[in-house]
């Protein structure tokens, strides 16, 4: 039974597995290590870095912080600032105050947030109420830049929705006007509702001030909302949208990006009303930057729950976060050995031959970035381009490496074209074809053209398909969040991966693909000719 395995290797593998089990047991039993067993949830880390140059006087900085609501949760937050007194008001305004501040200081605020998309149904044929509570009446009054009693605004609101129009239609028409008829332009500085109306173009803030002003003019309480758009990026700008009070709740409206009575997952709310997210005292040099990263919150939780645990190597990774190394990246790196084992299985046990050695693992990593379907599409499209280019330049007398360079150039150009076209068509995922997948696909296309030259078309196509399936298997194994969580909680499990390869590496049995070929030699005993 075991004759096809190496005895020494099996023993070492067993020993390694035992060691792994002992380490895990010790962590769990003796050190009370808690692996988090919950399903992982996606979230975003939001980091605000502020640089302050004091001139010796008072420094007072206020930032409206993420709000918790029914669609938005702040999982954790924290700040780090030397020489400041930090307070949070009940209204979620963070305040950094220093009486006498000189020299350069930096302030960092960090929050881990989760958001959900939400849609709000609006009532049919309901009249606009005539009375509101005192608290709501503030949302009907004009403000400095929301001139809801300005004659031009009132006239426009009446023209769009004459008195007597029901609340839903009124909001729809006013929203449509702000969304469709007011052109978006990127301008710095304040723009008032009246200016937006007069010019027919406005920034995001101007569009919303106009919408809020018209809603108020029509007797619907309305206010602005301020927040961040969550995407992997560093940015300085925040985003504004509006809210209208209908049937006892606030309904979000975004006339900039076209969300009517709905709010997308990527909107993180920071403040209500026409306020600045960041305000500061005068006479200080000031610069700021938001840094937003999407990440799995689960590893975070594992790290937190074992913060005091001496065996928690993940503690080190919290330090990596300082350098903006995302957990996502660490996950990819941790999963690469698993992908490598899949390739070892495919080659030595199944007996198929993909391109390169660990090329399928790398292709799988790039699928992770693009998503599987898009990745698969890109993979085959790139091979097709490579084949077409190769076929058309074969007639020219080109030396080998320059020819490959030409093929890679065309591959890169077509990936770019693919990105541009998919963005034009509204598939934003197509834009995700970033540097890494591009490099990997270019390398694979090189192997592909080499194989066409050396072994012919059939072999090249067969190996392409093989590479794709092995990559898909790697992807399936590597994207398993349970496996990811297990390895993050117990990195020593990677030792078991070593053990697995000791077993695979010492196995001398027939590969699946060889089995048919050599079966005949065992079926009947061939007398040895003497």
């Amino acid at each position, binding site marked *: 039974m075991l004759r096809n395995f190496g005895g020494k290797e099996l023993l070492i593998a067993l020993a390694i597995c035992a060691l792994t089990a002992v380490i895990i047991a010790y962590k769990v039993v003796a050190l009370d290590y808690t692996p988090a067993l919950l399903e992982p949830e996606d979230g975003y880390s939001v980091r605000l870095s502020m640089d302050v140059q004091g001139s010796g006087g008072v420094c007072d900085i206020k930032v409206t912080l993420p709000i918790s609501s029914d669609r938005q949760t702040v999982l954790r937050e924290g700040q780090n600032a030397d020489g400041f007194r930090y307070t949070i008001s009940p209204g979620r305004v963070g305040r950094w105050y220093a009486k006498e501040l000189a020299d350069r200081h930096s302030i960092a605020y960090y929050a881990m947030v989760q958001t959900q998309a939400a849609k709000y149904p609006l009532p049919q044929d309901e009249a606009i109420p005539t009375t509101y509570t005192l608290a709501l009446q503030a949302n009907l009054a004009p403000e400095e830049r929301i001139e809801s009693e300005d004659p031009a605004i009132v006239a426009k609101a009446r023209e769009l929705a004459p008195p007597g129009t029901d609340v839903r239609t009124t909001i729809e028409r006013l929203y449509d006007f702000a969304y469709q008829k007011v052109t978006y332009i990127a301008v710095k500085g304040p723009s008032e509702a009246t200016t937006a109306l007069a010019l027919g173009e406005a920034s995001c803030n101007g569009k919303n001030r106009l919408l809020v002003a018209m809603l108020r003019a029509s007797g619907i309480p309305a206010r602005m909302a301020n927040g961040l758009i969550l995407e992997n990026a560093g940015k300085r700008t925040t985003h504004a949208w509006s809210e209208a009070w209908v049937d006892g709740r606030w309904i979000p409206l975004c006339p900039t990006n076209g969300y009517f009575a709905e709010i997308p997952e990527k909107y993180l709310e920071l403040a209500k009303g026409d306020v600045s997210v960041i305000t500061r005292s005068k006479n200080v040099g000031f610069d700021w930057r938001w840094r937003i990263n999407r990440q799995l919150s689960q590893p975070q939780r594992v790290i937190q729950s074992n913060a005091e645990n001496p065996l928690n190597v993940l503690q080190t990774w919290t330090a990596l976060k300082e350098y903006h190394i995302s957990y996502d990246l660490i996950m990819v790196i941790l999963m690469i050995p698993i992908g490598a084992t899949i390739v070892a299985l495919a080659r030595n046990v199944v*007996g198929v031959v993909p391109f390169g050695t660990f090329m399928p693992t790398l292709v799988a990593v790039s699928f992770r970035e693009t998503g599987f379907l898009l990745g698969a599409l890109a993979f085959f499209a790139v091979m097709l381009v490579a084949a077409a280019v190769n076929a058309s330049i074969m007639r020219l007398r080109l030396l*080998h*490496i320059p020819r490959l360079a030409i093929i890679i150039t065309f591959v890169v150009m077509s990936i770019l074209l693919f990105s541009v076209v998919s963005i034009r068509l509204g598939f934003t995922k197509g834009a995700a074809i970033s540097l890494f997948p591009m490099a990997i696909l270019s390398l694979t296309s090189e192997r592909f053209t080499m194989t066409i030259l050396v072994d012919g078309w059939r072999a090249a196509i067969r190996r392409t398909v093989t590479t794709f399936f092995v990559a898909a298997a790697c992807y399936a194994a590597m994207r398993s969040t349970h496996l990811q969580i297990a390895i993050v909680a117990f990195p020593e499990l990677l030792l078991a991966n070593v053990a697995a390869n000791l077993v695979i590496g*010492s196995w001398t*049995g*027939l590969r699946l693909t060889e089995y048919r070929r*050599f079966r005949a*030699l*065992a079926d009947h005993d061939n007398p*040895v000719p003497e």
Partner: protein
Amino acid sequence: MFGFRKPLDAYGMNRRNRDLVLLHNPPRAIALANDKIATKRALAKEGVPVPATIAEIRRHRDVAALLPILREQRHGFVCKPSHGSQGRGVTLFTRAIPGYVLPLHGEPWSEYDFTYYVCRLLSGEYTVGRPLDEVLVEEKINPDRGWIIADLAGPPDLRIIVHEGEPVFCMARLPTIASEGRANLHKGGVGLGIDLRTALSHHAIMKEKSVSHHPDSGNPLLGQRVEGLADCLAMAKACARAIPLGYMGVDIIRDRDRGPIVIEVNARPGLAIQLANSRGLASVLRPRRDSE
């Protein structure tokens, strides 16, 4: 799993790589065997007959000097990448005349075509995994087509497996029309299992299935005697002395004028020889191991 229930005599790639290649063949020796130029020198030193070398081209700038040398060749010549395998990039030529180089098959090549071809070999185009290669130009041998059986579509060759210095397996490879005259099993050539002691063929395969007659001529394949097998086995042993591989394949062709010549040495010979002999490698290796 596979191979567990019944002990298979057949070696698969895993077993060949682990129990033969990794055990017996040090990486340096494998590198030597993969380098045709270096292999030839080592073999010649041990007195093994090899095809005569016309030129060894290592740099693109040497290509220009090649054509005048080739024009003096009267018996044809072969160009091959030094690190190529499975005959990739190998081309046979009958001669070179001013302006043209004449291949054995097909239209004449212009000198420009020929130079481009040699440059492609030098650039490592037919050598997977190597950015650059050298080119070996040899005198074309005058192979004896009738060595094993009559009426073949091309020259046959003999593959001998040498394990720790001793020949253990032998197979004759016969070209067919289907294999385009090449002694290549996966292209459709016939593999003939040869008994080492009696020099008689005892089994034959084509496309991995047993056959008894040659598909082109209908000539019987079994019970054929390989003339001069003893010399070939001695040559294979000499190869094992020249190149420190504990497990190797030696390919021999019989030249009409010079007799058997070693054309290639292989550090990872294929496993089809087991099918040709209808016996697994284990059955010929195990007794040797037990006696140690």
